């Protein structure tokens, strides 16, 4: 992978060009970022057709709001990933969705396979320089807190889905998540 700082800078410039309605820059932005963003959507939604629709909405959104993106606030990839994750979570709120998930028999297995997938997300995180601080702090969490936080982030699981998946009471899982997050904040604050 290219140097993250250089990549960041390149994406910032592409976004700025999109803000000036440069459609060629938008094509390059899509080329550079869609595999990651589609991966994020696929992981949460677990269905290609849904992930495709979400991705389409998100890029239209990114184009429409590119001029409002402020590089001073967030890294471009963070900004775009948040757009995709939020759209995925909105998608999962659709009223008729539960029916579909129930009929999808391998849904649970997929989560298991990915949660215990190799190499572990934590290993991958610690190899990427821009994620190393976060990986170190995640590693310091209790195993159950870490698992709950990572399942929620990567797979888009809600508190009740986490409780079902981890086979723990809802209240316990909520506490793990909350404490995990606050410890992360404290840890990142000291390493930053």
């Amino acid at each position, binding site marked *: 992978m290219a140097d993250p700082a250089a990549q960041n800078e390149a994406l910032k410039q592409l976004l700025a060009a999109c803000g000036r*309605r440069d*459609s060629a820059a938008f094509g390059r932005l899509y080329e550079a970022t869609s595999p990651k963003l*589609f*991966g994020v959507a696929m992981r949460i939604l677990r269905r290609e057709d849904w992930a495709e629709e979400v991705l389409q909405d998100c890029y239209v959104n990114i184009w429409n709001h590119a001029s409002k993106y402020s590089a001073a606030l967030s890294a471009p990839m963070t*900004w775009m990933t*948040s757009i995709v994750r939020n759209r995925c979570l909105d998608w999962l709120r659709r009223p008729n969705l539960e029916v579909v998930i129930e009929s999808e028999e391998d849904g649970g297995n997929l989560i298991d396979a990915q949660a215990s997938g190799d190499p572990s997300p934590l290993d991958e995180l610690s190899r*990427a320089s*821009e994620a190393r601080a976060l990986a170190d702090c995640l590693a310091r969490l209790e195993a159950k807190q870490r698992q709950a936080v990572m399942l929620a982030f990567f797979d888009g699981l809600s508190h009740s889905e986490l409780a079902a998946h981890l086979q723990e009471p809802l209240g316990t899982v909520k506490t793990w998540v909350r404490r995990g997050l*606050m410890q992360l904040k404290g840890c*990142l604050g000291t390493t930053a």
Partner: protein
Amino acid sequence: MNYVRNPELIERLAAEYALGTLRGPARLRFARLARENAATARAVREWEDRLGPMSVAVREVRPHRRVWKVIQARLPDAGGVWDSLAFWRNLGLVASGCAAALLVTFVLRDPRFAPVPVEKIPAPSAQMQPAYVAVLSDKAGKVVLLAYADRHSDELWLKPNEMQSIDSAKQVFELWGLPKEPGGAPRSLGLIPPREKPTIKLAAAADQTLSDFPALAVSLEPAGGSKTGLPTGPVLYSGPCLKFW
């Protein structure tokens, strides 16, 4: 609940929002709060920055090529509109309502276009003649040109509204009909004379000349117009052309 006076609660909700575990109506409420309250928005952004790097570990999956095609077709102002049929379709849907409104505000208030005073217009079918109306906008979506022709007339009336200023000794606006078929070549309808209320003499009555074109466009050409029969300069304005009965 009074979120704003409780920074600890804001912080906790921002964390759960960014992580994704804040769900349902609570998520929507909190998103609304973040749009209205800068401190809340900042807390969310900080949490997105903290957790965002986790995405590094998500495996990349290249989306199918059709995804990009749909995205392109959904971007009206991204250029390349000549070969995007979906764009014209969408625009036509949106604009038919818009055109009807403009028909009233622009056309009927122009004495040339209004056979009867606006306030006395009865039901459209009783008095208004069937006609073609085109509403052309610039890339920012601002309406800059209205075109109107009675179906039996070969005279196309134009009403510019702050079109780009050009040196009319060297340049001219040329009006084009865009065909229904994807990839079909645009056809020149004529040059727009540099006047306040220009008209274009069509090759035949509007029913013959405009009925094939779901949209019109204006390109900037050298004085005398395009020599190639196709637009050679930038396409500045475009929009749907509709027949009103």
